[in-house]
């Protein structure tokens, strides 16, 4: 098992957002998490990445055999977790290349490896630049500074390629992208799929899933996964909207 979430409850400023999430992910699987605004999708991503504002009040998360909730955000990353942000931060004055090099080498250090030398690093960069089709001029600039929405998302996928995570969470990576940008980003993600790597795709819409073809689709409503299925579920949601799920839940509750 790559990731095992059991009965996860989390709150922010005393407000309960996650109310008992259960989710298991095996290596190589792509899971989509869908759901209406405010259902807790991004909170789930933040809690998994270790954002300190969120308090886990109940439940457990096991990542590759380790108790993930005990790890700092940096250690989660070094253990192989990657979060592609919905709104990547602009950091003026910090060069993207230096930043990624630092990230790569801190991970190597954590695993007892020597830092990568300049030549090897540039070679790796070049290879990944081609893989995810990112304009390399972006990488000499400050992190995300003045990047368009599409460029920011592409930079996230590029970082994912460089860090080679075991599990990647894509938090609404499709939001704010036009059709062309979406296609390029999705293509990048598809190239990063392999039999070892798990991927969680958080999205509102079917269109990214058309490209990614997830193995499983989960619907999150009010802090709980209320329905899980195959990619057919996403199509059904697209067609009927979230209301049909809500109706189903209230029906179940009434029974």
């Amino acid at each position, binding site marked *: 098992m790559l990731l095992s979430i059991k009965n996860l409850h989390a709150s922010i400023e005393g407000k309960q957002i996650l109310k008992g999430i259960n989710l298991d992910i095996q290596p190589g699987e792509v899971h989509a998490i869908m759901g209406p605004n405010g259902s807790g999708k991004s909170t789930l991503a933040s809690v998994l990445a270790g954002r300190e504002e969120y308090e886990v009040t109940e439940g457990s998360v096991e990542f590759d055999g380790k108790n993930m909730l005990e790890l700092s955000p*940096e250690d989660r990353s070094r253990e192989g977790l990657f*979060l592609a942000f919905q709104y990547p931060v602009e*950091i003026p004055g910090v060069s993207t290349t230096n930043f990624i090099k630092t990230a790569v080498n801190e991970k190597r250090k954590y695993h007892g490896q020597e830092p990568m030398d300049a030549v090897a690093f540039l070679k790796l960069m070049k290879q990944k630049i081609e893989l995810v089709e990112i304009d390399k001029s972006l990488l000499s600039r400050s992190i995300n500074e003045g990047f368009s929405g599409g460029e920011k998302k592409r930079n996230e996928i590029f970082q994912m390629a460089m860090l080679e995570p075991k599990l990647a969470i894509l938090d609404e990576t499709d939001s704010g992208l036009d059709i062309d940008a979406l296609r390029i980003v999705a293509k990048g993600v598809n190239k990063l799929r392999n039999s070892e790597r798990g991927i969680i795709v958080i999205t509102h819409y079917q269109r990214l899933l058309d490209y990614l073809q997830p193995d499983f689709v989960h619907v999150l409503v009010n802090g709980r996964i209320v329905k899980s299925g195959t990619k057919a579920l996403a199509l059904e949601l697209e067609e009927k909207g979230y209301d049909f799920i809500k109706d189903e839940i209230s029906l179940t509750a009434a029974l």
Partner: protein
Amino acid sequence: MDPINISYFGEKFNRLQLANPDNLLNSIRKEGFKTFNESGLPGTKNEEWKYTRISNLFHKEYHLTEDELKSEINISDVNAVRLPGSENATELVFANGKFIPELSTIRSSDNELVILPLEEAAKGVFKELIHEHLDKSSLFIKDGIHALNTSFIYGGVFIYVNKNKVLDNPVYLYHISDARENHTLSQPRSLVFVDESAKLQVVETYSTIGSMDSFTNEVIEIIVDTNAIVEYYKIQNDSITASQVGTTHIRQIGKSFVHALTISLNGGMIRNNTDIIMEAAGNEAHMYGLYLLKGHTHVDNHTLVDNTKPNCFSNELYKGIIDEQATGVFSGKIFVRPDAQKTNAYQSNKNILLSDDATVNTKPQLEIFADDVKCSHGCTVGQLDEEAMYYLRTRGISKEHAQSMLLEAFAADIVGQIKPEPLRIYVEEMISERLSVN
């Protein structure tokens, strides 16, 4: 202030006046001492000194060399303070506030650059120039500490850059205080005149030898004539026993360009007055400051841009990172006089506090008496950007490393304004070392 100190300075003053009779200098000193006698040291009731109490620093006996140029400082002391790029620089050494020609090296020809002891210059061909410009700063700064420097003008330096001479070699001023035996008061005084269409880069740095206290009370006046360019860099990285009041008084008397930068990394109590007086239409000035403070270091940057003529442009950016129990003060005054229409004046002060005990006081002051002007000011005091910290950490970068990356980035746009490359690299490395994680 202690009356004992007043009489101590009185005796010294009288001796200096008798030992060095020069009509011009005697009368300037006399005026200075009169002001000092009347106003004493500025106290915290003085609005301009509200956050910086220097009077406490005078509750001890300082050794002041008023009328002799001798000191124990030798060439190996100078070697210890040389800055990168010195091999191409004119290096002027001040020992306990006095210019020491024997320890100094001039690396420009004398038809480009003239360096003279101030007393000598006041007698020769530059007499008129000195008469016209020396101590104009007293018209702007009326406090007792500036007057104390003026009371003891002796052993200063005169720096003159000839018309149309664009100096490739910067001028480095090394201020060395010998505090091995006594608490030492150093009062360097410099007058710099950059003539029409000339260019000069000036760099000042400070160093205290010994474990007693040093107090440097400096005044440097820089006069910039038409089409001239002046770059001024002050680098403060002295020991915590070294306190300082330094006034850099720049007057742009013709349409000219000034680029001034102050970096404060270490010291006791430091007050920098950086004044730019726009005396001609179309002047342009850029002022930058970076203070990176820890321990109990106190750094107070007071700036003044005084627009007296139309069409002047000034831009000012001061940034501070304040840790432990350190204190930062910023006060930025912009005057726009009635004739100074079409003034563009911008000012910004940004601070990051890294500890609960760190303090910053920031105060913009705009006084505008013309109606067609563009002025803006802003100040921020905050912590590190939490979002950015989180982002970096989710990429596997430790909290400490993420913090140092963000702080270096914060400082980078100031350091990037240091134009002489060896100096910029030197400061970058110092800052990087200071901010790095072990």
